[in-house]
């Protein structure tokens, strides 16, 4: 990690499998780095204080709030954003399930929920409804009333079982 003039740091980070090298100010939030520097606007920014969950990303496979990390802290780590889960032609099972089960309305909270659900189902492939509700307790949705999101997570679990 090289420090340059104007208090910039050379950041090297892998995002969705691609290595990036960028000069960043230490105060740049990871969420802003992903959106503004890399153009990955799938990561949404809601509250910027860790409550809403819209900015959730995967840091070395774990769901974390990207608004509560500085980009520079991702040095040497692997990040997956919602753009890295699947492709338009090959959606991730969680994306297929949310599509099929109507797990979203406006879609603002969806990237954060998808990135939360992926590691959750890896740890717990056969969750109860209560466990699902616990798992998404850190993601606010103001449209759906959550019922269809819970259904979509159940459907994801089924799809992932079929796949494996």
């Amino acid at each position, binding site marked *: 990690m090289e420090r340059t003039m104007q208090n910039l740091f050379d950041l090297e980070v892998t995002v969705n499998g691609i290595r990036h090298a960028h000069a960043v100010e230490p*105060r740049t939030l990871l969420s802003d780095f992903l959106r503004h520097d890399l153009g990955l606007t799938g990561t949404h920014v809601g509250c910027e204080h860790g409550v809403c969950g819209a900015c959730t990303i995967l840091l070395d496979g774990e*769901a974390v*709030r990207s608004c*509560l990390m*500085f980009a520079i802290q991702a*040095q040497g780590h692997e990040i997956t954003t919602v753009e890295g889960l699947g492709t338009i032609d090959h959606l991730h099972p969680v994306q297929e399930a949310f599509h099929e089960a109507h797990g979203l309305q406006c879609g603002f909270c969806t990237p954060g929920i998808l990135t939360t659900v992926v590691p959750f189902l890896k740890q717990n492939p056969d969750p109860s409804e209560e466990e699902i509700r*616990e798992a998404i*307790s850190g993601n606010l949705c103001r449209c759906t009333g959550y019922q269809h999101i819970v259904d979509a997570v159940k459907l994801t679990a089924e799809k992932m079982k079929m796949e494996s």
Partner: protein
Amino acid sequence: MKPAPFEYYAPTTVEEALSLLTEHGYDAKVLAGGQSLVPMMNFRLVQPSILVDLNNIPDLAYIKPDDGGGLHLGAMTRHHQVEISPLVEERSPLIHSAMPKIAYPQIRSRGTFGGSISHADPSAELPSLCVALDGKFRLRNQKGERWVPASEFFIGLFTTVLEPDELLVEAALPPMPARSGWSLMEVARRPHDFALIGVAAFVTLDEKGLCEQARLVFISAGESPMVAHKAAETLKGQAPSPEVMQEAAEVASSEEIDPSSDIHATADFRRHLAKVLTRRALERAFQRAAGTE
């Protein structure tokens, strides 16, 4: 809002971190998991000129047993690691039971044990639990180290005895005595939110089944973890009857806590909740101590 500019240091050893704190002392803030500090920086409630980031010091993340049956947690141990640790479940069931109540899964992947303790938020669980369990903390600076009991560590709102050149490096929890029981009860508007009020009860029975020792520590009930000494005193030497527990709950909730009113609840309502929760928490703790749960 975005954080104000700061100088950033990412030491890779504790020694390096201590040297930075010695040099920058008052101007520096230590960045642990960042789940409280970064929101405060985003709102510019705090604007540290220097950040010392501990996330690249792997030596500070561990959960170790000691020979006496106690537990040692490195300051940078993430909440999620504590939550899933079989050792914590076995040796400190009170901490184990509390972990899912601490914020949300995404916060627990990142937040740290030592960070929560050092931040000293009176509405956080871990500070009060460490007091209830009679834990102690190891503080280091360049000159050496000192152990401070949890009961003496928290001195006010977001304020601890940590000096600017000191770092909390470890929390130690003593073994659970025989015939001891515990309970944590909280009321929050939504699960995982900061509790409107909460209480941790830790009790020990003697061989005759009388209360030998009791500790009641309240969350969101004042400027720091609030210890109900008088209420605990009323329990000592008594058989744990409903009347005795009710009396302790009355004393604690009316005389020994200092909750404030805010948009979520009035102080009176918090006192009422404290009374009900204390009685329930004591019932549960005594049941566990007696093995009749």
